[in-house]
């Protein structure tokens, strides 16, 4: 209660509202996510006390998590990697004239995800933090193998093409200086631009920005983006009635998102993708996923919001950032003269509980702001394609330039966009490549550290209980489509046998 009272102080409350609104705008911008917003706006927080500053930045973080869904749904471009999974069903829904339905689902799911995770954060912080501490490199690598296996087992796409997509993403992540030896790797044509590696946003914006626009051009011939968009009180009521259809998926995604978010190796992106995979598995109609199932929007949105709260847990309790955004927040805390770690709860209780209280309020504030502006977001879709397309191309170019500020990355983005479009035409799934490029550096580091620690003995992944469990789950996920295929064939044969009998 003290935390809520602290968050309701006039200055802190104002910081929450401004932060949420700014976060929504930043999150909705293709190429800009919470990490950009928090990094760029961190210096301006030095003019307010630390509690107000962390509340402001946390509100941006929250708002950006909601905002990512806006561009994923209305433009088909994820505002950040955390909203990649939202595109899978958000975009088909918008194209079918149900952008309002997808946006409502995203807002409600984010609210549920945020609320559940904040409650979990408040109640279970100490034991979960100590559990996450037990994760060594072997466990981190096994966890990532499990995330990739989710795509192979549950993605429903062609398996060799899915494996290719994962591997190319991992190879692209390996471009640049070797993380351990510092040697330059895969520097094609000795171009200096490759030395700093390939930023995941370059691939994500290329595929989901440029590639998506080219795909839309092919499917609509540039004539219309959406056939029909309607917003009315009745539609909004029906959208809210829709909630019962995805509340179970949302709750499950929230819990999953929170737990994955607490792990330093993981975060909101794999959490949202895993949540999407789970929602598809447990759905009564898994074939409708990727074609406009509202549960496919709610599940990743709940998970990415929950993960953003989860990632704050190790930052506050252990001083270990759970995500790039929390790494910047951690840096801010040190500048403000605070010492992140368990002592923070006793030394600066008003700071910790003020932050926790602000998360409750920010969650509600973002929901209200988001829902109030849904009609405005939907209006974006009614723009003629010949106006919308150049705006999106410009945002992609500027968004591709912003992270590293090199034109080399913008050219790469265009290349990825065109190649991604050509591959998509042949049913190569592109989402696994985006996940792989994000997790690639972590996966390589944890694999090499594990092997170095075990002197090259690969059984290290099977002798540690947590990693062995993850590997077993991954194997089960990989075998799942084969078992499913065999079962179907057996059933078909039995059916034919009975028919003949």
């Amino acid at each position, binding site marked *: 209660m003290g935390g809520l009272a602290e968050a309701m102080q006039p200055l802190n409350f104002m910081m929450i509202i401004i932060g949420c609104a700014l976060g929504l705008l930043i999150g909705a911008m293709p190429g800009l996510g919470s990490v950009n917003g928090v990094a760029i706006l961190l210096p301006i927080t030095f003019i307010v006390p630390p509690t107000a500053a962390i509340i402001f930045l946390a509100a941006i973080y929250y708002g950006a998590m909601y905002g990512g869904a806006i561009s994923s749904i209305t433009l088909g471009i994820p505002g950040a990697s955390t909203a990649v999974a939202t595109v899978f069903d958000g975009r088909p829904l918008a194209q079918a004239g149900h952008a309002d339905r997808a946006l409502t689902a995203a807002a409600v799911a984010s609210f549920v995800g945020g609320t559940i995770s904040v409650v979990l954060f408040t109640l279970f912080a100490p034991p979960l933090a100590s559990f996450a501490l037990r994760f060594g490199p072997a466990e981190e690598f096994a966890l990532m193998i499990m995330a990739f296996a989710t795509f192979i087992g549950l993605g429903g796409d062609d398996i060799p093409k899915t*494996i290719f997509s994962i591997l190319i993403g991992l*190879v692209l992540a*390996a471009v640049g200086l070797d993380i351990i030896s510092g040697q330059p790797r895969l520097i094609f044509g000795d171009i200096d631009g490759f030395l700093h590696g390939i930023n995941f946003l370059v691939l994500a914006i290329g595929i989901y920005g440029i590639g998506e626009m080219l795909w839309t051009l092919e499917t609509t011939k540039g004539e219309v983006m959406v056939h029909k968009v309607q917003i009315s009180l009745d539609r909004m009521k029906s959208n809210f009635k829709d909630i019962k259809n995805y509340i179970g998926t949302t709750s499950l995604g929230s819990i999953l998102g929170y737990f994955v978010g607490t792990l330093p190796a993981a975060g909101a992106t794999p959490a949202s993708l895993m949540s999407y995979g789970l929602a598809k598995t447990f759905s009564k109609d898994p074939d409708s996923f990727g074609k406009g199932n509202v549960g496919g929007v709610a599940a990743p949105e709940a998970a990415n919001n929950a993960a953003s709260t989860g990632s704050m847990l190790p930052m506050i309790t252990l001083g270990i950032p759970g995500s790039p955004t929390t790494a910047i927040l951690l840096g801010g805390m040190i500048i403000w003269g605070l010492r992140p770690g368990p002592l923070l709860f006793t030394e600066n209780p008003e700071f910790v509980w003020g932050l926790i209280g602000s998360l409750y309020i920010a969650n509600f504030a973002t929901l209200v702001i988001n829902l109030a502006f849904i009609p405005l977001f939907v209006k974006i879709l009614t723009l*003629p394609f010949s106006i919308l397309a*150049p705006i999106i191309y*410009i945002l992609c170019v*500027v968004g591709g330039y912003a992270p590293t500020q090199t034109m080399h990355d913008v050219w790469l983005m265009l290349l990825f966009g*065109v190649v991604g479009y050509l591959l998509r035409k042949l049913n190569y799934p592109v989402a696994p490549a985006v996940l792989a490029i994000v997790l690639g550096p972590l996966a*390589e580091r944890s694999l090499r550290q594990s092997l170095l620690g075990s002197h090259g003995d690969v059984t290290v992944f099977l002798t540690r209980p947590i990693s062995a469990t993850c590997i077993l789950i991954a194997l089960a996920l990989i075998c799942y489509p084969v078992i499913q295929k065999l079962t179907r064939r057996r059933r078909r044969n039995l059916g034919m046998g009975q028919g003949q009998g």
Partner: protein
Amino acid sequence: MTDRAVITTEVPAMTVRTAELLMAVLLALCSIGLMVKSAELRIGWVPDRGPGSGAWPFWLSAGMLLACVATMIRWFRGTTPESRNLEPYMTREVALLVGISAGSIVFLLVVTHLLGIYVALFLFLLFYLKFVGRHSWLITVSMMVLVPIFIFCLFEWALKIPLPKSITEPMFYPIYDLMYS
């Protein structure tokens, strides 16, 4: 005579089936290229340092090659829907639409290198809105002015991310003076 001339000059569109095989072969060649490039570094075990720098990308590329071979085998067996699809991979109309869009982005990037992003945005919007979209001059000019201003205010002023200006950089000095004074 005319019919024969049409038959001999018309290029048949590539089918999805052919594109599937061609793509698998191209990706397999890329995978081999990546394996060769990775093998320039050590791909085996380095005492006290673990796997060599090239090991991770080498084995990943080898996996990519295997995935491409699997796609080729499935193509020969006709397992994938794409390997049985005899429809055109890309019609002439789609190729034109996609070509204009991709070409206009190439134009935007080339002009950005030469004259800076704001001149490039100006010309790109003129081309796309007036000549591709056939919008009125009012909409075209409004967008040509407002979009670069919005981009400048958001990225350079609010977010402090300088965008490339090439030879037009000196034109922005008075604005920088106002922004940072």
